[in-house]
């Protein structure tokens, strides 16, 4: 104690007397303490659980993305394989005499072929048949595919080599050539830069009409021609990896929600989101969307983070903690941009604003100082509207399930623009939305 205190008798008196305390222990006070400890342990457990859920979700999303990417990689690998190799038993097994296998076999009479498809005039106009002068010498081009049974097997083989090194083959439209063999011996000629999955490509070239490949009937593509797009005369189709998009998309969305006030921390139990969205695609990368989502939001507000406009609390004693469960109608308006396209999937970023309509608000209060008449619970269907009260940012991954169906996973973050609810809180939310979309 400082020396200047000791000469004041009043101070000495009080100091001495307050040191002679005789206070009986009360078990009920420990029971109150124990409740606090249990609540704290429960909070810690919930927080750890949420961290584990977040980590597991991230892991699942990563594995999912890896699986899709891996599948994409395998597909590309197969393509590469077809481009670099011939079918076993094909070129290498050609007899040195270069006679075409089965060429001595009688060729069946040409049957009327209903499979031959003619291009419509619009399509034909887009195609630029390659003048024969433009075809390199060694590369006779696929326009001059030998008829089955002909002696031109060598030229076909030569053509294959040339095509493999021919510059500017990136836009070769012809997928492959199969030469029919009555003994079902197939010779496949792959071409560099082709997409072998485009088996339904149909072109009109100098060689005439083409036949569509139909594996079920064992019918091979007899001949094909190609378009050489070095000059760019032919308008290229969109990048092969971009899916042709419809204008409108309808989605059913669901997912967990974690909300809090004040900052991104101190989450309690998760709530949920469930609703519908409508998306309009402006182009293949940009779209706008809106919808209606019902959300159950659970959060905990401390002290002055919860401020009802009326001076509501008894004797002005503010609760130390407010636990809220609110049912909200969320009307989001957002813009999304697809920035990375894969074969059957894409990554996108979204930004938008949410308007909230409070359907039901329930609050439970905990006080540091207990006194009679304190409000412990408040509940009402307030119906208050808070327009553009929260901004949202998200990153999503969409994968195509079927031609018109897709699945999206979209983790999001919402930050408050304005206060909402009866308690005028600034609500932060994080979560993840899974949506099933139908593209019209």
């Amino acid at each position: 104690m400082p020396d200047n205190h000791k000469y004041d008798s009043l101070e000495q008196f009080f100091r001495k007397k307050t040191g002679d305390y005789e206070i009986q222990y009360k078990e009920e006070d420990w029971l109150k303490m124990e409740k606090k400890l249990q609540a704290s342990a429960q909070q810690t457990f919930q927080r750890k659980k949420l961290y584990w859920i977040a980590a597991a979700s991230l892991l699942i999303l990563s594995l999912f993305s890896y699986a899709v990417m891996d599948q994409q990689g395998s597909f590309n690998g197969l393509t590469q394989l077809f481009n670099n190799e011939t079918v076993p038993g094909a070129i290498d097994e050609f007899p040195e005499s270069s006679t075409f296998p089965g060429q001595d076999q009688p060729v069946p009479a040409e049957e009327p072929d209903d499979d031959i498809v003619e291009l419509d005039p619009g399509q034909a106009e887009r195609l630029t048949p390659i003048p024969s002068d433009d075809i390199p010498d060694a590369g006779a081009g696929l326009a001059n595919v030998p008829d089955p049974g002909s002696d031109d097997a060598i030229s076909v083989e030569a053509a294959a080599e040339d095509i493999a090194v021919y510059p500017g083959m990136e836009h070769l439209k012809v997928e492959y050539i199969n030469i029919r063999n009555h003994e079902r011996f197939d010779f496949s000629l792959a071409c560099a830069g082709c997409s072998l999955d485009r088996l339904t490509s149909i072109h009109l070239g100098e060689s005439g009409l083409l036949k569509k490949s139909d594996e079920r009937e064992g019918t091979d593509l007899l001949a094909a021609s190609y378009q050489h797009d070095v000059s760019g005369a032919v308008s290229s189709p969109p990048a092969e990896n971009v899916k042709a998009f419809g204008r409108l998309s309808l989605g059913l969305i669901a997912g967990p929600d974690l909300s809090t006030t004040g900052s991104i921390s101190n989450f309690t139990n998760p709530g949920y989101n469930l609703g519908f969205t409508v998306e309009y695609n402006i182009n293949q990368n940009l779209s706008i969307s809106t919808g209606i989502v019902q959300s159950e939001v659970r959060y905990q507000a401390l002290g002055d983070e919860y401020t009802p406009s009326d001076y509501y609390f008894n004797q002005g004693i503010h609760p130390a903690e407010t636990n809220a469960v609110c049912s909200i109608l969320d009307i989001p308006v957002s813009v999304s941009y697809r920035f990375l396209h894969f074969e059957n999937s894409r990554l996108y970023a979204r930004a938008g604003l949410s308007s909230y309509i409070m359907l039901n608000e329930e609050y439970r209060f905990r006080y540091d100082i207990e006194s009679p008449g304190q409000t412990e619970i408040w509940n009402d269907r307030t119906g208050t509207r808070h327009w553009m009260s929260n901004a949202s940012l998200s990153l999503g991954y969409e994968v195509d399930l079927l031609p018109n169906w897709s699945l999206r996973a979209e983790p999001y973050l919402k930050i408050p623009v304005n206060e909402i609810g009866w308690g005028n809180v600034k609500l932060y939310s994080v979560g993840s939305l899974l949506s099933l979309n139908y593209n019209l």
Partner: protein
Amino acid sequence: MFKEIIIGCCKRQRKSQKELYKKYYAYGMSITLRYTTSREQAVSILNDAFMKVFDNISGYDIERPFKPWFRKIVVNTAINHYQKNSKLPTPVSLELIGDEIDPSETIISGISYREIIKLIQELSPAYRTVFNLYVIEGFKHHEIAEILGISVGTSKSNLSKAKRNLQDKLEKILTVSHQYAR
């Protein structure tokens, strides 16, 4: 023995936590009673202080005495409570821990602990807090000013008024006791 209790508290064992609570309950209450106007408030502050103790027990150096470390936490918790509620209207009804003054113990040296606490509790929160920090805890005025966010002049003024009030109350008790003694 005490070391085992602390180790048990570090492991969040309920039994060890209760042992520590019981051991320092009276000491803690003797502090918090001086900063509040009711026993319930005192218990609430004490429990908040113990929560901080249990949350930070792993940071406590077991080689050093526990009481000063515990006292510091309790006093800080009491000050935080005062600062949170300093702008709120003072509750009208005060629950005092003491019974009525026993006429047989009215000379000043015979005033009991309970009565002393009652006198302190009757002070206004600002006077009471400064009085506790200066007289009982031993802080200097510039330290009190920093802790409470007031000026040194206000700290001195509040202490002076607190002492005057207590002096008046003690004189009243003396006057009453002399009348009874006759």
